[in-house]
């Protein structure tokens, strides 16, 4: 049973526009959420994270929003650039879980010129 879901397997966006990636979770014990970015033939790299005590975290062009009541988080990329074309994974962790992460299936983002 997948506890972290990314329902959009792919997203196409024009360069300069906003990319919005969505992630839903079912486990109310999750208290830390992360986004990873993955290029082909490489390992995932950490992008941005948010603790459950916050509802927004921003890092440059990347902003993550958390809606705990809806068990939903989203990643906004503004403005989107061709180098942002990658697979984005949402991940979540529960307290005292030894750092173990539950991953979503990923969303393939393609940024077109």
């Amino acid at each position: 049973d997948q506890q972290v879901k990314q329902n959009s397997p792919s997203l196409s966006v024009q360069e300069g526009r906003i990319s919005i990636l969505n992630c839903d979770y079912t486990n109310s014990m999750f208290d830390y959420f992360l986004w990873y970015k993955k290029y082909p033939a490489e390992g995932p790299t950490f992008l941005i994270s948010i603790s459950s005590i916050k509802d927004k975290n921003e890092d440059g062009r990347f902003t993550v929003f958390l809606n705990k009541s809806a068990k939903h988080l989203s990643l906004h990329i503004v403005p989107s650039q061709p180098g942002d074309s990658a697979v984005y994974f949402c991940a979540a962790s529960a307290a005292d879980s030894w750092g173990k992460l539950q991953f979503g299936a990923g969303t393939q983002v393609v940024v077109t010129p």
Partner: protein
Amino acid sequence: NAGVTQTPKFRVLKTGQSMTLLCAQDMNHEYMYWYRQDPGMGLRLIHYSVGEGTTAKGEVPDGYNVSRLKKQNFLLGLESAAPSQTSVYFCASSQTTGFPQETQYFGPGTRLLVL
């Protein structure tokens, strides 16, 4: 500082053969993890270790064994490979102090094909 490295990058096995995947990290991290990635399923945790000499089962441990004899190394073994173990395997590590332990750093992956 190489971060997390994995050996080999690619391997083809016949059903029933055995092999060991090696993961090494030079960040002095306590925690290490092995994942597999399959199409449409994201990353699933196979085994993990919270320190030298310790290992524990993750979400999909069957058919795999692990060892953490040295802090910097985490080995994943397949004793009798099956076609269902065809996958991309990622190793990751994380630290326990000064930064959320949930932030894991990944290796480049090992692509395994079992025929």
